[in-house]
Structures are given as C-alpha cells and as structure tokens.
C-alpha cells in the first residue's frame, strides 16, 4: 500500500499537476556500486513518523528510515516478506504475523510484536490525531479509539475514548501477534507494506515530537542530524540494519517549494534524482536527458465524477454520452504534453488483474454519444453543464478543454465552477453538493485492485463522491474480500469493474505517466512499482 492520497492532495493544492516519478525497473539484484552521496529532490514532508506521514515526500524519507513487515517486488509489485517471517490467515479475518528476530531500532530497542502493536495503537487512537489512523479502519476495536462526535461539528467535544488499545491486536509471544479484522479481507498482506504499518520504538511514542524531528528508525538508513525544515534531510547508512544494506553511503533529500525550482537545481547538477518533472518541461527534459529518464504508466487516477444524486445525471445514458464526447488523447497532448495515458478502465493498468477497454464509452464517438443522449431524452434545453474543479491547481485548463469538446459534440454549453479552494471543494464533495461533473483524483493505498473499487464506488464508502450505490457491485466486492487468496479474489473484483464500465458513475480520464530524471553520477536507478523511486537501491558511479 502506498499512500498516494496526499499526493493527490498536494498535486491539487500546490503547483499544477505535480507529477510523481516515472521509471522503469532498474533491477535491484544486479548490484551496482556501493558508496557515495545521492542527492535527491523532495518536497517538505508533513511528518517523519510512520503514524503521521501519508504524503509522498514523507513516504520517500520514511521508507529509507523505517522498514515494515512486507515489501514489494520492484518489478512485479508482488508482496515479499521483509521483517515478517510469515503472514497467514485461514479465514481472511484473523491474521497471524510472525516477525524475524534480531532486528532493532537505531536506539537499540528490539523490533518485536510490541513495536508493531504500539505503533498501530498509537496511529488509531483518535486524540493522537495521526493521519494514518485511517488505515487501521479494518481492525476490530477501531471505533472505540475514534469515537463519534455526539453533535456532529457542534460545540460539544467528542468524548474521550475509553481505551487506547485496539482490541483486535493480540500479542502471542515476543515475535508473534494476531490481527483481527472487522470483515474478511483477502488483500490484507498487501496493505501492511504501507509505512502507516511500520513499527515505532517506545522512545518514539513517548516523545513523538522529538521523534518527528529526529526519527528513530529501524531501516537501512538513519538520520544524520535532524530534520532541517524546508531545507534538507540527510540520512546515512545504518549499521544496525540486518537486511540488505542500502547502496549509497548517504542520501541527501533537498527540499523544494515547487518542482520548477527543483528542476532548475537538477539542470545545474545539484541533484542526482528528480522523481518528478514540471509538466511544462517534460518535452525539453526528454530531449535533453532522454537516456537518463524513466517513464512508466503510473497509478494516479484522474476522473470526472457524476453527482448521481442529481436528477440530471441519474440516467446512465447521459453519463455515457458525455464520456463518449471526450477525446482524451488530444487533451493529454495539448495540456499535458502527452504525459498521461488515457484511461479505459477503473484499475491502474500496472495492477494485477487490470484489463483494457473495460469502459466501452471511453473513446470519442460523437454519433453514438448523440444517439444515447437522444435516447435518454436529450439534455434540458438552455441548461448549462456545470463543470467543477478546485481552484489554483491548473485543473481548469483541461476541464475547459473537456467542456469545449462536449459543447462541440453535443451542443451543450458549459460553465466552469473552479473558484473553490481545495478544502471547501472537498467539503462540497463530502456534503454531496456538486451540481455537475466534478474532477477528482485517486491514488491506490496498496497494490491490490480493491483499492480502486470499494473506496470510490462502494455504497457509503468514504470517498464515494459520486454518491453511487449498486447492490450488485457491493456484493461482488464483498465476495472478493472474502476470497481465500488475493489471486482468487481478482475475478470477483473484475466483475464489479465490468458493471462500473457500463454504469459509468465516473468518467475515467487518464493515468498519469510517472517520469523521473537522474544525473550522470547515477549508475543504476531503481524504480519500485509500488514504492516509487528506491533511493536505497540506487547506485552511484565510482569517481
């Protein structure tokens, strides 16, 4: 699982499309040279604790400082054991986790069952206000730690939670513990590779503020000095790490306010890796650094949702007609310099179980669109289609192009409503107050196709902003969750996706292509399909 939520949030709020990395797989077993200092681009992280950091810049640092139970294969994104000896379950509900012995934190504390239980409890406990508390939502007892506010947003405070511990976490012995989930979930092993599930030392939980400034990690790198806010974070290879050692001696994360500044620094040879590129410089970068550039179809999903709670969009034929009038590739070429891949399904193409052309209405076909619109009884005469996006993030541009194309194809005039800042925009989404198609994005939590389905289209799910509800889809998703293995779950999920492809609660727009450049100092650049640029595995040339 990889937290791309905030990545989307950052993209939405900070600069225009802040692209993440790209890359192809350098492979990690072809060991390059060890040593040297790797200087990499980073934005200012939000938190450097596993329980707090859920945005891309945080994760890039946390993944080198901390390690979790499982990791992902760089090329196949398959789950591999890291600190865990085994992760097993008979019923997909009660999971038993065994930890390898001998691992320690930088301060000497052992990495044992307590370290994980402690970390997860800390994250889940409401008053700690940890961003990754969200990820504990499947574990039994989480409701007791995050009690509801009795009067919504009102003046009364939420009651103090009765307990600080998740009842679903049970320590068996020093190196074994069990996790009980609310409902069966076959994809659970993929989720625990996400940094929100990484362990924390007791010393860290005791003084979380200090631990945030100078993290006490358990991974291949440890802090050199403390976090220089907005300037840099430096890490050096850790001696206490028992696993495969990191390649560079030292990694310097240089912190930039915007990607343009970072790119300027890269051009001046002040950085070795830019895991992302300013959209407008993509062409130039490709020309100039073509042989040192990685590109990969990513898994950041951009969609235009329909407010299915609004009468105008209740008829699926209207939704289909609108989707059919959009030429995705031409918008991608014009606005993004070709840096996106048109979406024809709802699951990232790189994911196991993803298929092409799940959506039959996702390529331009004006005649069919007109026909479907006519069948649905046409668009109310004179009514403007209102297209929503949040302000200040450059979304207005491509949305305007979408509007232009709809207008050209179906003769429906449009209006852009793009003046809401992100917070307010999201609140509008939460309150289901959109009056027309709205732009939003989604990034996966873990490399398992479920992450693209339930949260967005499950009845009442947290990010189901379309307000979509389909009993059949719900049932199929449940079926997949309860399947005996991840492999076995895929067909159920695919069936659910097929229904979505016909019903079209949202118009899939595109998948972002990740693009990264690296300097001449880099010998072998490693891109992990799940965890993105893997700096610990990237080797430098010997001078």
């Amino acid at each position, binding site marked *: 699982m990889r937290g791309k939520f905030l990545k989307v949030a950052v993209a939405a709020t900070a600069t225009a499309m802040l692209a993440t990395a790209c890359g192809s797989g350098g492979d990690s077993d072809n060991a390059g040279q060890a040593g040297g200092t790797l200087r990499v681009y980073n934005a200012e992280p939000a938190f450097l604790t596993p329980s707090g950091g859920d945005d891309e810049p945080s994760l890039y640092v946390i993944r080198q400082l901390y390690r979790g139970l499982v990791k992902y294969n760089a090329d196949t994104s398959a789950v591999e054991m890291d600190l865990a000896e085994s992760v097993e379950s008979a019923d997909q509900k009660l999971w038993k986790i065994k930890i390898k012995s001998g691992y320690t934190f930088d301060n000497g504390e052992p990495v044992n069952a307590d370290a994980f239980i402690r970390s997860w409890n800390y994250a889940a406990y409401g008053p700690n206000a940890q961003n990754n508390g969200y990820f504990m939502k499947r574990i039994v007892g989480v409701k007791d730690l995050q009690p509801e506010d009795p009067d919504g947003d009102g003046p009364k405070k939420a009651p103090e939670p009765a307990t600080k511990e998740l009842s679903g976490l049970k320590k068996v012995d020093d190196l074994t513990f069990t996790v009980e989930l609310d409902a069966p979930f076959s994809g659970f092993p993929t989720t625990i590779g996400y940094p929100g599930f990484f362990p924390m030392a007791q010393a860290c939980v005791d003084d979380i503020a200090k631990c945030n400034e100078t993290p006490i990690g358990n991974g291949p790198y440890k802090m050199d000095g403390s976090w220089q806010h907005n300037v840099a974070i430096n890490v050096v290879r850790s001696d206490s790490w028992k696993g495969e050692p990191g390649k560079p001696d030292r990694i310097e994360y240089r912190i930039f306010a915007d990607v343009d500044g970072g790119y300027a620094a890269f051009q001046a040879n002040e950085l070795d890796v830019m895991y992302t590129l300013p959209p407008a410089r993509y062409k130039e970068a490709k020309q100039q650094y073509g042989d040192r550039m990685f590109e990969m179809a990513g898994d950041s999903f951009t969609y235009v949702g329909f407010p299915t709670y609004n009468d105008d969009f209740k008829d699926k034929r209207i939704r289909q007609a609108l989707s059919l009038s959009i030429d995705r590739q031409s918008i991608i070429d014009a606005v993004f310099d070709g840096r996106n891949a048109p979406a024809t399904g709802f699951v990232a193409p790189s994911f196991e179980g993803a298929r092409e052309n799940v959506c039959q209405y996702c390529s331009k076909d004006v005649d069919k669109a007109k026909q479907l619109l006519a069948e649905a009884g046409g668009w109310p005469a004179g009514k403007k289609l209102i297209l929503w996006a949040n302000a200040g993030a450059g979304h207005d541009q491509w949305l305007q192009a979408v509007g232009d194309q709809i207008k050209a194809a179906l003769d429906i005039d449009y209006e852009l409503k793009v003046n809401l*800042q992100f917070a307010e925009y999201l609140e509008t989404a939460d309150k289901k107050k959109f009056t027309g198609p709205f732009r939003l994005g989604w990034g996966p939590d873990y490399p398992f196709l479920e992450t693209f389905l339930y949260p967005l289209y499950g009845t009442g799910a947290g990010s189901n902003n379309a307000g979509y509800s389909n009993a059949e889809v719900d049932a199929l998703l449940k079926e997949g969750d309860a399947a005996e293995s991840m492999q076995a779950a895929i067909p159920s999920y695919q069936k659910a996706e097929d229904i979505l492809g016909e019903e079209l609660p949202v118009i899939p727009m595109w998948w972002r292509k990740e693009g990264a450049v690296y300097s001449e100092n880099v010998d072998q650049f490693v891109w992990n399909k799940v965890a993105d640029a893997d700096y610990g595995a990237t080797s430098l040339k010997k001078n």
Partner: protein
Amino acid sequence: MSDLTSAGTAVGGGPVGAGGPLPDQPATGGRERSASLWADARRQLVRDPVFVLSCLYILAVGSMAAFPKLWTGQDPRDCTTDRSRLSPGGEHVFGTDILGCDYYSHAIYGARPSMIIAIMATGTMIIIGGSLGLLAGYYGGWVDTIISRVMDVFLSLPFLLGAIVFLTVIKRQNEFTIAMVLFLLTWPVIARIIRGSVISSKDLDYVQAAKAVGARNGRVMFRHILPNAIAPMLVYATIVLGSFVAAEATLTYLGVGLQPPAQSWGIMISTHQVYFLEDPWLLLFPCGLLVGTVLSFILMGDALRDALDPKFR
C-alpha cells in the same frame, strides 16, 4: 511590485503631498494661481512626447478593455485542442495557447479585467481614502486621531502579505473582491496625501478669510481646500493605476488572484510562465502588454508631477 504604499514615493519622489502643492504661493491668489497652474501644466504636457505616447498607449488599452470587438473579430473562447500552442503568424497573429485558443483575441479580452480592477480600486481609493483624509485633516482632533490610527493599522500590513491574507480568506476571487482588497490596503496612502495637503492649506490666509466671512465647512473644504490637494492626488492615482495592473498579475501568480476561466493578463502570464523556454511568445505577448501599460501609467504620472509641481519647472 513590492509595495504599493511606497509606490507613490517610489515613483514620484518626495512624499507627494507632504508640503502642500504650492507652499510658497502668495496667500491671496490661491485660486487664480491654481487655474494658471493647470493651464501651464496642460501646455507643458501636450509638448511632452513621453506623456503623449503614454496617453495614446493607455487609450489603446482602454479601448481594448471597453470595446474588444474593435480589435478582434475572433472569439477567444473558441478553442480546440487540435491547434494547441501554434506559433504566431497567419490566422493567429499571436499564435494559440495550450488549449488552442487564439492568443491575440485572448490578450485583447484580457485587458478588461486588469483595467476594471485597476480603475475600480483606484476610484474607490480616491473617493473613500480622499474623504477620510479630508475629514482627518480638516477637523483634526479626535477625528484625526481615530482616522490616523485606522490608517496605521492598514498601513502596517505589507501590501503583498495583506493581499494574500485577505484573498486566501475571501476565497471568492473576482474583479470586485480583488479591487476591494487593493483598495483596503492602499487607501491610507491617499488619505495621508490629502490629509497633509489639507493641513498645510487650511491655515492659508484665503481659507481663513473664507471662514471668517462665515462660509460653511463643506464649502470651505470643497471650494477652497480640496483644489489644492487635487494635483498630488492625481499624480498618485495615475501611478497607482499602473501598480494595480501589475499587482493583479502578481496576485494571480501567487494563486490568490483571478482564477481561470476568467481571462486576464495576469492569468495569461502565470499560466504560461512555465512554457517560456519552449514557447516564449506565450509569456512575451501578455507580459509586453502589461509592462507597456504599467510603464505608460507611471510615465504619465511622472510627467503630470513634473508639470504640476512648480519645483520641477
């Protein structure tokens, strides 16, 4: 633009109205003197090529804002992604932008918001700031104290920071709100100018004489005192018009100005600044128009000040 509150001093020179416009004028003939002052100024201005050129440029931009159809027959909203970022030439004199909209008509239509914001903000600033300055200077005492303290409050907010604060909070960024924010942050400057000018002229003999013969306060203020303050106010207003045009662009760049799909020079510049290495004209055209406008306003203000301030004759 760093700070509009300093723009007056910036461009003008000394605090424009600090000493009153004509500190050495004979006590009696104030009105005649100012009449001949304006006549002299006009004579001097029409002979000043810089002033004339600036005026023509502003007129051109003003007509773009008022009657864009005079300048272009094309619809700036007629866009198609098929012709994204065409180079200038042929059908599209300025080329096309990334959405394939005609850039020339875009630039013409973009004049309007910039000008509306500048004019609305300056107008409000003159009327309200001017009145408050007049009241403070004329009545003095506690009226002056209160108004001066309120002025201090608004002056203490550095211009850009203040604008960021107000606009992040307002969140409805349109011509009106931006103009109002610009006004809020700059009215104390004009109020100060007027106040200083009023204070220095209210003790002049002819004003005292008017009072002595029982003229009402309103009449004294408007007939005898205000005319003295008009010259420095006019100079500052001209310069500030230019600064506001530039401010709109800067605020847009910082993400707190106008939002697309509105069309303004600021939006054009900040949207396309990232492309300036690849397709420099996307930045060059709106930037050129903007710089020209700001430059013209400032040069006009300069020329006005030289013409209206006898010290520089």
